[in-house]
């Protein structure tokens, strides 16, 4: 087991290095050089030359990259051009927003998708099965931002049941020790704030979770169908065990295995969908941050933010792999 983990951890290094090189090159390939971005429009070629020399931009690129790696290792990701704050500070504030949204979306997807898929499999071929299949297909066919707009329009504007933007009512003066607003409310025993944060999460979570919901439902259904026809299940049934116990002890547990692999893959979908959802609901998370950074030509944010996200993404996949390896010993040997 340990060897498995170590092997996967070692894989992490070249991947992250590769991503950082890619980002480094990408940022430098974006229209507009760093000198232009910082110096004045009245800068003369001489001033640009001086700037480049001062900031080490005339050194060979691998030397620059090494210097960049050193500052990044120290934890300094630069300063945002748009907000004039350190990138790391912005990440500290915005990352929890996206994570909270992703968690809420995932929770929604699991809470609805798992039972949906399971029962569709149990009622294979019946109306429930067909309709759940159709529903999940629609789930992946609706663009996330379109669904977000519809939800916002119906439940916020027309019905007024839920708030339309942001993470928190602007008037609530709540403390945020963790940065996860729902958790913060609970931790500080500010129940109104916690509930307010939940209300702000409901619509975005549904919009963002629609695709994972559909996928989880389908995969659960497929794997439940597979497991149901397996020998050990048939044996258990032949033994005379009550169907409900068979379901719980054998079918469910094994059917959920493929779902855990899928969860890891969902993170990428969630991050991409977060950009769109956060834009529609004006949530100050990583998604909307990166989108604005592109329009504002905020290179430090792009470089630092995307690198951070890639790191998180890879780590999550690693954790999922480890978890899966834990659950399913056969994988460890491959």
């Amino acid at each position, binding site marked *: 087991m340990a060897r498995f983990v170590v092997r996967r951890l070692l894989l992490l290094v070249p991947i992250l290095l*590769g991503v950082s090189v890619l980002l480094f090159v*990408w940022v430098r390939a*974006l229209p507009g050089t760093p000198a232009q971005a910082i110096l004045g429009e009245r800068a003369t070629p001489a001033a640009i030359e001086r700037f480049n020399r001062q900031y080490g931009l005339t050194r060979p690129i691998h030397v620059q990259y090494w210097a960049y790696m050193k500052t990044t290792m120290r934890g300094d990701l630069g300063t945002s051009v748009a907000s004039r704050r350190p990138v790391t500070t912005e990440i500290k504030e915005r990352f929890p927003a996206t994570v909270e949204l992703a968690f809420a979306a995932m929770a929604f997807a699991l809470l609805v998708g798992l039972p949906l898929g399971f029962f569709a499999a149990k009622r294979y071929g019946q109306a429930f099965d067909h309709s759940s299949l159709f529903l999940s*297909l*629609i789930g992946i*066919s609706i663009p996330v*931002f379109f669904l977000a707009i519809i939800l916002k329009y119906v439940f916020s504007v027309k019905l007024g049941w839920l708030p339309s933007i942001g993470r928190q009512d602007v008037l609530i003066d709540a403390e945020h020790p963790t940065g996860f607003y729902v958790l913060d409310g609970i931790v500080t025993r500010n129940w109104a704030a916690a509930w307010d944060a939940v209300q702000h999460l409901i619509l975005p979570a549904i919009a963002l979770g629609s695709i994972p919901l559909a996928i989880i439902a389908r995969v659960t259904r497929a794997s439940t169908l597979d497991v149901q026809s397996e020998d050990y299940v048939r044996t258990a049934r032949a033994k005379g065990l009550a169907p409900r116990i068979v379901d719980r002890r054998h079918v469910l547990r094994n059917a959920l295995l493929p779902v855990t*692999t899928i969860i890891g893959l969902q993170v990428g979908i969630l991050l*991409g969908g977060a950009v*769109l959802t956060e834009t529609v609901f004006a949530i100050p998370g990583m998604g909307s941050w990166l989108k604005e950074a592109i329009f504002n030509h905020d290179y430090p944010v792009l470089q630092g933010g995307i690198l951070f996200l890639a790191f998180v993404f890879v780590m999550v996949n690693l954790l999922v792999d480890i978890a899966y390896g834990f659950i399913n010993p056969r994988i460890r040997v491959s």
Partner: protein
Amino acid sequence: MSLAEVEGVRIEHEHLPSGLWRETGRRLLRNPGAIVGFVFVLLFVLIAIFAPLIAPYSPTEQNLSLLADGCCPGPSWAHPMGVDELGRDELSRVMYGARYSLVIGVVSVTVGLSIGLLLGAIAGGFGGFADSIVMRAMDIMLAIPGLLLAIGIVSLLGPGLVPVMIAVGVATVPIFSRLLRGAILGQRDTDYVLAAQSIGVRRRSILTGHILPNSISPVIVAGTLAMATAIIDVAGLGFLGLGPQDPSTPEWGTMLTNANSYLSTAPFLALFPGLAVVMVVLGFNLIGDGLREALDPKLRGRL
């Protein structure tokens, strides 16, 4: 980037010897979902191709006098889908939008498919060092979430329709490369390949003559599903403002962005392009789904 990526994991190891096409076709026709999907897609393709002939108006012609009472006149006999904020006929715009979506889907998938298959063939065919390099490259690409990767490519090339197509296409490369590599690896030890190798057939011929034809089915399924996600992702990128920079372009994603500002007075402006996207994407997903069920050896026993 969603279903194709996920399901790609599953179809890697499924392959058919040729000759079962007829049975596949028969099973497909028995699947009501696939038929509906086929109808949707056919409708979409026909509208896209014949838009200039069947659209009642030009998609860019403005008729500002229609907006004298504010925005915007809803569906009527003269304008069955209403009129947009610049006095343009919405129905014609939705029809022309189909052309953009069709081209976008085809181009992105072709780009992703060709590059992906090439890389997959190299990785699987040559193995060893080439394999690890290609797979590490794919891992790096997959380390960046799909939409963000597309955003990254677009910001490099500048916003616009062509960069968006390239970006979406490139983002599908890992799916296809992994697919073909898996198919090759899966078939490497089969009897006919071993037999061919023992006779002395060259690696390249084995690849093109045996392995590739047998890998076509998962590629077709992945390709269909990739079309679906390509259309959605381009709409998403358009919504973020990275698509066609001319706001009068009748592209569904751009139209959805513009419609957002008129939601309180003219919600139909968002409804029609949105429904169009959903229907077309649903169509491709239904077909892809149907194909996969039709080709799945495991399900063969059940039916």
